[in-house]
């Protein structure tokens, strides 16, 4: 529950700050309410469905591996940040 408790910190702060003027308070409340509404798990239009109508039908769980990737990327040597890093490391080496 600590996540929820900590999470209320910034929210509470925002509310106090907004309380300065009633107009900002109202402005801030509206989108928040809309978001909560939007956030709710919806009722399914049907009570039950066939296994094959599921997002990942039973037996096909193995097919989801390509939907998740490892958090690192080894094929990005041409990408800007990696290039900069290499240059930077070369620079440090020069100073040793």
């Amino acid at each position, binding site marked *: *529950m*600590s*996540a*929820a408790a*900590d*999470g*209320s910190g*910034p*929210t509470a702060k925002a509310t106090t700050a907004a*309380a*300065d*003027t*009633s107009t900002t308070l*109202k402005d801030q409340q509206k989108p*928040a*309410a809309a*978001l*909560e509404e939007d*956030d*709710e*798990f*919806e*009722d*399914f*239009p*049907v*009570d*039950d*469905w066939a296994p094959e*109508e*599921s*997002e*990942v*039908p*039973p037996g096909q*769980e193995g097919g*989801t591996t*390509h*939907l*998740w*990737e*490892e*958090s*690192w*990327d*080894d094929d*990005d040597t041409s*990408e800007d*940040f*990696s290039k*900069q*890093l*290499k*240059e*930077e*490391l070369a*620079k*440090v*080496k020069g100073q*040793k």
Partner: protein
Amino acid sequence: MEVLCREYWHANQEGSGPLLAATISPIAPPNYLNRLDAIYGDTNAASISRDISYSLTKTANAAIQYPNPEINSWTEIYSAYWYAIGAILAAEHPTTKPDWTKVYEAWKDVANTVIKGYSGGVLEAWTLPVLYTAGKHLRAFAIKADENARASGGDTSFNAGGLQEDIAGDFGKNEKLEDAARVINRMFTLCISDRAPLEESRKWGLYYTTNLLFKTYFKLNSIGLSKNILRALSASKTDMPTLEAFPRSHIVTFKYYVGVIQFLEEDYAQAEENLTSAWHMCHRSATRNIELILTYLIPTLLLTRQQLPSSRLLSPYPSLGSLFAPLTLAIRIGSLSAFDTALAEGEHEFVKRRIYLTLERGRDICLRNLLRKVYLAGDLDEEGKRNTRIYVKDFAAAIRLGESGASGEGMDVEMDGSAGENNDEVECLVANMIYKNLMKGYISRERGIVVLSKNGAFPGTGI
């Protein structure tokens, strides 16, 4: 009244809970748009109860014996329903100011008469969808009533000054929804306390009512109360049908909420299990629900498996893409500054969805990827083995670059000026990585180098 009563007998004949539940729906079906008006206009407050009981008897196929508890129960339910329709039609009338509090109170009578029908042993388990309909709309009307009260509360105390308005705004903010939670809780108790044999037990209503409670508690921001429900459920596990025996809509919703609760409690292993299975089982056209499940599954997998969503996974859900793509990219390339920017830019949304703190922990993975790159950039020895001794200075340079987001000339100055202090910080970060098992090795302080493990310097990343 005859329309309503015919529907009632038809549902009974079919033994169909959903059909029976439809008889007390506060929403007119598309093929009979003036159903509510027709029922309401058919009688008046003075004769409602007599009318219904008379019609129910008249439309029955067989002779009815008196006194008939079923007819009595449904006379009470339909009378309450008739009053509720009156309140709904008034609220929906275009020229009047809607009074949702009145609708809520009227619907609460419907819910209470339904509960009475079950607790008195009159309504059987196959009619459970009636209980669901009563509970579902009770909650919806409560939310509307509270919104209404908040809006009009703001009007009346408009001139009362900032401070008082604030107090008025906080007081009774969710009065009706809290009240609805108590009624729904009674519905839950009704289901869990039923001792009838499983085939005809109200225990089949347990997950539906649990889900309704979860939704209500989440809305009230009292997620902790859900724990009581979970405890009660696990206590009666032995004399309950297994979760798999329930309809998929009940299971998926239940697993989603349980997964989110575990996520918030930082029990990520359990959260992963429940959210993954909710995702798999979710109806494939329920896009919004899949989106919600993934909103929590993505941060969970980042921590449990250090996996990121592929663009293929995100592409059907543009809002998920804009929520997670910048952060995902930053982690993948190991750019700390891009990570910090993405986290700051998404902060409002992340906090709102209660995933900020979990995502923040992704910074460790981002740093791991950065340090990993330093290692990979190192030289190979004559045997083709990578150098496992890395200067703290090298890591420091990488972190500086990662944090600034660009290699500027200014950094050289900083390096000359406060190199020692800076290296202490870097050693601290590295020690942290080692402690969290994201990196394997040790720091040799006197030599200013990090000695990485020769096999598996960065566990789980293939090197």
